[in-house]
Structures are given as structure tokens and as C-alpha cells.
């Protein structure tokens, strides 16, 4: 008796899986940023530019965020993506195409230097403004 049930259930499964698959084959690839030895610090999204960013850094980088100024040994990377709809869930937005990787590093004097490692930056701020925007991030506040 159970068999009949399973055949029927299985049948409905086969029919069910005929529904359209939102994960289209586009010839494009998935991308996960590899921060190497840097740690994830925080994320953001920009409602005006429709971008999402992730900030990574070393310990000195995290200290620089607290001090809001340059110290020796800072290494920060801001990775920015296009913000897009979740292909499977309306109402959710996710990070999509990689747009840019910006860097903030300090020289021997502890002066912060701005650089672009990949892509084009959507914001039209100057290098100096970019550095201070990046220094405005705070590490995630997780339960201890």
C-alpha cells in the first residue's frame, strides 16, 4: 500500500521539479572575495548607488577605524558589488557583480594612502573623502 503512495508522491515530485529554474546558465561565474590574512570588519549598502560593500582589514586597520586616523601598518580593503534582487526571493537584495576593490594602506610615516586594486569606483568622492568614508566603518557588534 505504501508503495502506491510513494509512486504517487514520486510522480508529483517529478511534475513539481518541472517548474522553471531561476538559476539561469548565463556563462558568468560566481565570485567570493578571498581576503587572505585580512579579517572581515563590516558591510554596508548604498541605497543611492545601489551597491553593497564589505570591508576587510588587519588588526592595525581595525585600530585605525577606532583612532579615525593613520597609524603605521594599516591594511584595509573595501570590496564593492552591485546590489541586486535575490534571484530566488523577492524582497531580499544580495551582492551581485563585483565592481571595485579599494585599498587604504599606510606608509612608514603612518600616512594613509588610497588606491584602487580593481574596477571603477561608483562614488564620485575624492581620494581623501574615500579614505574618511572608509574610516567611518565600525567593526560588527556581535554578542560576546
Amino acid at each position: 500500500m505504501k508503495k502506491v503512495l510513494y509512486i504517487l508522491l514520486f510522480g508529483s515530485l517529478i511534475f513539481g521539479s518541472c517548474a522553471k529554474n531561476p538559476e539561469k546558465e548565463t556563462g558568468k561565474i560566481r565570485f567570493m572575495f578571498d581576503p587572505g590574512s585580512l579579517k572581515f570588519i563590516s558591510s554596508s549598502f548604498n541605497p543611492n548607488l545601489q551597491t553593497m560593500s564589505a570591508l576587510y582589514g588587519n588588526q592595525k586597520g581595525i585600530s585605525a577605524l577606532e583612532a579615525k586616523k593613520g597609524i603605521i601598518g594599516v591594511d584595509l580593503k573595501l570590496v564593492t558589488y552591485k546590489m541586486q534582487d535575490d534571484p530566488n526571493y523577492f524582497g531580499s537584495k544580495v551582492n551581485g557583480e563585483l565592481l571595485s576593490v579599494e585599498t587604504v594602506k599606510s606608509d612608514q610615516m603612518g600616512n594613509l594612502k588610497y588606491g584602487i586594486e580593481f574596477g571603477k569606483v561608483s562614488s564620485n568622492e575624492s581620494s581623501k573623502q574615500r579614505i574618511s568614508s572608509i574610516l567611518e566603518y565600525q567593526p560588527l557588534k556581535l554578542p560576546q
Partner: protein
Amino acid sequence: MKHLKQIRILPIVLLCISAGFIALQFFNAPIEQRPVTGPMKNVPKEVTQILERSCYGCHSNAQNLTFLDKLAPISWIVNKDIRRAREVMNFSEWDKLSEVEQKGKFYAIFNMVRAEKMPLPSYAMTHPGAKLSRNEIEIIKQFALSLSKKDSFIPAHMSPVEAGPKVETLTTAIQAGVPVSPNGISYNADFKNWKVIGMSTLIDNSIRVIYGNDIAVKAIQEENFHPWPDGSAIAKVVFKQAKKPNGEIVPGDFVNMQYMVKDGKEYTKTEGWGFAKFNGQELKPTGKTALFAQQSCISCHRQLAESTGYLFNVPPKVNSRKLIEQYLKTASK
């Protein structure tokens, strides 16, 4: 000779089948009737009419079963679906949900009908009238959207630094021990060392960071989702939204943390994924019994994220291979 035998066997087989069929009806327990205790309120009639016609057959205490639905063995499947449907969402006991949960359900409802996952395809086939038209799906979408319009503005937070209680004051809360979900999955602070595999934000004012352990990251790289290897673990951290001085939205107060841990042998009822959720600064586990994942987690993941092995936050395929390869070459120098 052979022919003769067949002719004699046929009626016997038919007789057996019909006798079996009648016998089946004795094992046909009707679905238990329950009263309508908390019907939906403040939902426009054009929306409730659609739901009543197409969804109440399963997701309510007011079934309108056809003769066929009540006939075993069809009734077994129908009753099983109804029990399962009521367990995850019951329009007749709608008041059991908070306002936020009701809003969340309407997003789930829209997503289910948009993906043609609800009404269940098997049901839609036998109940042609239950299918939704494009126009009806649009009506549901507009209603779901209208629910978040009221509060879709970003709360005017102070700077994110002041946006919540200081972390130092919180350590006492969980000293008693590591919080454990009713299904045995414990809070694992190690996720902080995992790789961030994605970020997301919901219209309902939250911002999320999703981490994956090494096994999960490797599975994504190798497109190894069917099934995900045992030992894969995903952590999603949900925060309130806060505003940076330059207008960007960043994670503010911690809201909850959710895990999905893959063990194909252990979590057979939930597609091999063990679910856990820990809420607030005390990391209070969700669920009274181990059944909570079956009742309140797996449906959406199973129905809407099947193509990536029941996980939503797999980075979408949107990057040009050439550009990424170029970048990785320069970055490794």
C-alpha cells in the same frame, strides 16, 4: 492455453483491486476538524478571496474537500499535505503570529506563488480552479509591498557607534554556558573566522552577513550542491540597520544568528540540513522541540532554493570570468 489463463486471471485481478480499494477506505481517517480561531484581519477582500479559493484547502481549518479528495489512497496524500500545510501556516489561526511574522508570511506567500510552488503542483493539477492568474499574483505582490511601505524608511539612527548598548555589558548574559538549539546544534562562535560568502538585506529593515566554513566554501567553488557535503556549515547574522554619516546603511544592533549545518544522516526530515536560530544578546534558541526546523524553517528553503541545494545565499553567477581572472592575477602579485 496460455490465452485462456489470461482471460481467467484478468477478472480476478480486477476483483482483487476493487476489493483492496474498498478495504482501503477502512483505513481512511478523515482530517481532524478544528475551529477557525483567529481569521485574518485587515487584509483586503480581493486578497482573501484569492487565498480562500486557492490556499484554504490546505492552509486553514475550513477545508472544502471534494469526493475524490476523501477517497483513499488519494485522501492519504491530501490529509498529509493538509497536516503539513497547517503546521507551517494556518490562515484560520492567523492571530497566533505577530504582526512582523504576518508580514514575513506575505512575502513568503508572494514568493511561493511567483515561483509556482503554491498551490502545490499536485493539487493544482487535480484542482484546476486553484491556479492563480498573473493578475492575482500581482494583487498579492502589491499587498505584500504595501505592508512594508509604512516602515520602509530607515530609522534615523544615531551614528552606528552609539546605536546600541556597549558590548562590554553583555558578557554576563551567556556565561552560564553555550546556548543549544532543541535539535542539539549549539551556538558556534567560530563563525567569525569563516569566510563571508554573501551579504543581504531585506525590505523589512535588516542587514545580514552570511559566513561559510571551509567545507561550504569549497562546495560553492566546486558547484557541489546536490547534495552539499556533510560538515558544510553556514552562519547568517542579522542586524538592525544603522546609518553611516555619509548615508550608507551598515549593521547596527545584533538581532539574531542562524545556522544551517549539513549532516545527511542526522537531519533526514529537513533535506539533510540542521537548522538553528539564536535570538538577541542572550542568544536564546528558537524552538521548543527539535521539530521546530521542520515546522518553521525548511519549507521556504526546500521550495524556493532547490537549485542550489536549499541554500539561498550562494553568490549569483553574474561576474565576467575574464575580468575576475584578470583581477586575481594582478592581486596575487
